[in-house]
């Protein structure tokens, strides 16, 4: 394997780890820690209602269309699994049912298309 056993420069690595630890905490603390119980404006609350339903699809869409496992090539098993997961999740409103259906679709198609 080409990448195996090639450690990064430890200084760079530790700068990244510490920077991310501090940065991630700061991102999470900024509102809940500093804003606290002060009332937030209506327009902020209105937008925040749609945070999860916008950010999660935005995060997932590129991973579905251009999966890294295939080097970014669109892949039939992965796209089908994604579609089945979403539809079953919508239909049953059950997260586990969606995951099970999606995983079954992925493995079935990967196995059929080998």
């Amino acid at each position, binding site marked *: 394997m080409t990448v195996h056993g090639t450690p990064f420069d430890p200084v*760079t*690595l530790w700068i990244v780890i510490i920077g991310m630890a501090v940065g991630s905490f700061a991102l999470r603390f900024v509102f*809940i820690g500093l804003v606290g119980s002060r009332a*937030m404006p209506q327009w902020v609350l209105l937008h925040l*209602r*749609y945070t999860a339903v916008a950010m999660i699809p935005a995060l997932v869409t590129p991973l579905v269309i251009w999966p890294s*496992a295939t080097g970014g090539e669109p892949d039939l098993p992965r796209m089908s699994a994604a579609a089945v997961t979403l539809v079953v999740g919508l239909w049953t*409103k059950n997260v586990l049912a969606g995951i099970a259906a999606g995983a079954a679709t992925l493995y079935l198609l990967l196995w059929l298309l080998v």
Partner: protein
Amino acid sequence: MPSATSKSYFWKAVRESFPFIFVAGPFGLLFGVLGAEAGLNLVEVMTFSVTVFAGAAQFTALQLLREEAPTLIILASALAVNLRVAMYSASLTPYLGGAPLWQRAFAAYFTVDQSYSLSIVQFEKEPEMTLPQRMAYFFGSNGLIAPLWYVATLVGALVGARIPEAWALDFALPIAFLAMIGPMLRTPAHVVAMLVAIVTAILAVGVPYNLGLLVAGIAGMMAGAQAELWLTRRGLMT
């Protein structure tokens, strides 16, 4: 007895977090394996997972480290992927903001996709919950998942050897997140937010440093908010 009911909310959250075992387990494992493969030692992998505690951002940083990207770009990209937790933090503030500072500091650390998505649904469903009950539920949502994440990372780093590609673990995150979307689409405005986020994410894929994710997320949020205002004016939504 308020402490007893808080306790029951803690365990209710633990039970409701079961589906996320299938997210945190494989992903912690995968991060441990990929970290070890990339040459990180056990201390480095574990410090990464325990202090940063943000799967998607950790994978981004690891990927960019392997590509030998400049340190500042690595930090900016990985934190950009994690910007959504700032929005989660803001979204939880009306519910948890009245708690003591030390509790809010712990809550901040534990703000991740899983704890947020479980808690926000619960808090909206039962607005009469007291603050200690909400905090108990929030910490309960991580009572199982956080230790699992640490242990899974450790196992992955120890196993070190590659998990067979045939397991297609790369697709565990998309499947888990997609399964969460269905139950979230409670109103037409939620559907609009999702569709705009997806289309924008596709159009913005060339935007450097993972900023496309933020652009798409913000576009989806604005679309959802505008759709809600429009539907409310028409009397189609309350």
